[in-house]
């Protein structure tokens, strides 16, 4: 990605509240026309970072550049970014149309231009006939769309979304995910999306920044994040994984040579360059195949079976007492071993990963 394509450039942003540091020097670049997600557990700093971009928090250090221009010191009303708030923040005393036109009127658009654009945006979110209603008369899903329309109407350079789906029920959430994604494609502006829901992040994003404790752990596309996690946090936070204690012998050319529990040798991609010694191997449960005991990479005993409808989840215990999970597809051809049976596990080389920590 060349720098010309970068919409928001965040460099070394630090945010302190008294003695507590919420952001420890975060750097990342968000590209034009990209659906970018900040993902992490609550308290990781993702919302703080979003508020710094919007201008509601003053950074304690670092810079934020929007299309090359330094906006770090600007108050929120001077930044060409708009926010969809978690609780929508629709002005209760104004109609839907007045809400949507608000940003444009404050920026100097003429009333007729603003009205025209407002109608256009309301059509875009499928609320064409609702202009005269008040927010109190709308359902949660409708309010959210008004919030979207209001934020998009002034044609911001970047749209910020602060967990906008968290107040919606499941079915609605899934429908809105699809709508948001297509909206981003349609408008062509960068969306910065904050969520703690990793499934949401995986399904909607072009790229994800996984955050924890005020630091970025990894940035990448959903497949990259899922299949090539860099450290234990990312591997564990996204989806399910097995973390095995291994003995690393060497790492070269991105491949690691190591010994698995039980002594078997193994080779797989490494997330980072590191020396010999103890390490952690990440293997997703669905990337393990069963084979007769003794003929695989690991030997294990089945300790439990869980029926999940689409999959069968198998709990196994290794010779060194570590527990692992294996996912088998629930199909006619799958042979599911009994509890107590001895099995062998074959790890998919490309899917296993030696983590950086």
């Amino acid at each position: 990605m060349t720098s010309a394509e970068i919409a928001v450039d965040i460099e070394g942003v630090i945010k302190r509240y008294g003695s507590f540091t919420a952001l420890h020097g975060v750097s990342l670049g968000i590209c034009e026309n990209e659906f970018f997600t900040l993902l992490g557990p609550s308290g990781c700093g993702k919302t703080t970072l979003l508020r710094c971009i919007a201008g509601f928090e003053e950074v304690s250090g670092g810079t934020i550049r929007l299309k090359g221009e330094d906006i770090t010191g600007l108050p929120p009303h001077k930044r060409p970014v708009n926010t969809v708030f978690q609780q929508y923040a629709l002005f209760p005393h104004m109609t839907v149309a007045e809400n949507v036109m608000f940003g444009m009127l404050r920026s100097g658009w003429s009333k007729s231009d603003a009205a025209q654009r407002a109608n256009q945006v309301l059509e875009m979110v499928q609320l064409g006939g609702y202009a005269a209603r008040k927010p109190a008369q709308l359902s949660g899903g409708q309010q959210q769309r008004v919030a979207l329309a209001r934020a998009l109407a002034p044609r911001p350079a970047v749209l910020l979304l602060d967990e906008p789906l968290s107040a919606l029920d499941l079915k609605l959430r899934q429908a809105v995910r699809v709508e948001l994604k297509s909206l981003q494609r349609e408008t062509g502006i960068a969306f910065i999306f904050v969520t703690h829901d990793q499934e949401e992040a995986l399904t909607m994003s072009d790229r994800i920044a996984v955050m924890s404790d005020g630091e970025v752990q990894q940035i990448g596309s959903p497949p990259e994040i899922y299949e090539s996690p860099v450290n234990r946090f990312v591997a564990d936070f996204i989806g399910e994984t097995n973390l095995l204690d291994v003995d690393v012998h060497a790492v070269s050319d991105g491949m690691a040579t190591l010994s698995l529990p039980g002594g078997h040798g193994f080779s797989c991609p490494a997330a980072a360059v590191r020396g010999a010694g103890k390490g952690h191997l990440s293997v997703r449960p669905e990337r393990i195949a069963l084979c007769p005991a003794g003929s695989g990479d690991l030997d294990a005993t089945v300790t439990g079976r869980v029926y999940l409808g689409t999959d069968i989840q198998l709990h196994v215990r290794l010779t060194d007492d570590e527990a692992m999970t294996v996912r088998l597809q629930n199909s006619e051809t799958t042979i599911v071993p009994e509890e107590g049976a001895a099995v062998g596990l074959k790890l998919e080389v490309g899917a296993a990963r030696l983590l950086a920590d």
Partner: protein
Amino acid sequence: MAAKTDLRRFPGFLTLTIICLVVLYAPLIVVAVYSFNASTSITKWGGISLAWYIDVFTGPEAPKFQQAAINSMVIAVTAAIAATIIATLAAVAMTRAGRFRGKTLSFALISLPLMVPEVVTAVASLVFFTAIGFTSGLTTILIAHIVFCIPFAYLPISARMQSIPDMYEQAAMDLYATPREAFKLVLLPLMTPGILSGFLLAFIISLDDFLITNFVKGAGVETLPTAIFGSVKQGIKPNIMAISTLMLIVSVIFVSLSWLIGRTGQNKNQET
């Protein structure tokens, strides 16, 4: 569900509540009823008549009461407006400005008129005006009223502001409104029910005041309460009861208005 209600019910509490209400309303109802008494004797019932109400407006004491009523109204409106403006500004600072130097002190200051006993305020005001040579009259009454109306106006305004999260102002600024525009176009409209409530409260408080007014008014001026008191000192006459009933009705109307306005504002805000 039945078990839950039982735990909340204490035998005898309903009776006490009824007693409470009876005690609160009995004197007022009795006065209201007797104000329609046709007989001139205070206590013997002589049938229904509006004679005393007519006397209030046209009788020998009418001019005195009318002037007093006008004085009361003028002072109440002016004091309420001034107190409401001052209280609004203070409420904005106290609820929106986070922690600033002197905040606790400011809060104590606004509450001060409520904490000082009324008679002390009365004495202090009289002493002060005399000491600086301010002639007693409408102005002294007005100034004293503004001061003790401030906390009463402040209470509903502050309560209202606290129930408005600042996310609306943030949204406004996110949409390019300057801080002043955010205040004028978003916060102020949302605060209006509270401001109106505060104004009505301050108005009634000013209208009803007796003790402080009595101390600082000087000889020539009367407000409605002081005029009534002066008259009562000479004995309770039926026209007093008529005036009392009238004031009762005015108070009830104003308080109901204040309460209703407060509620509609709350409902509007809650639904988002």
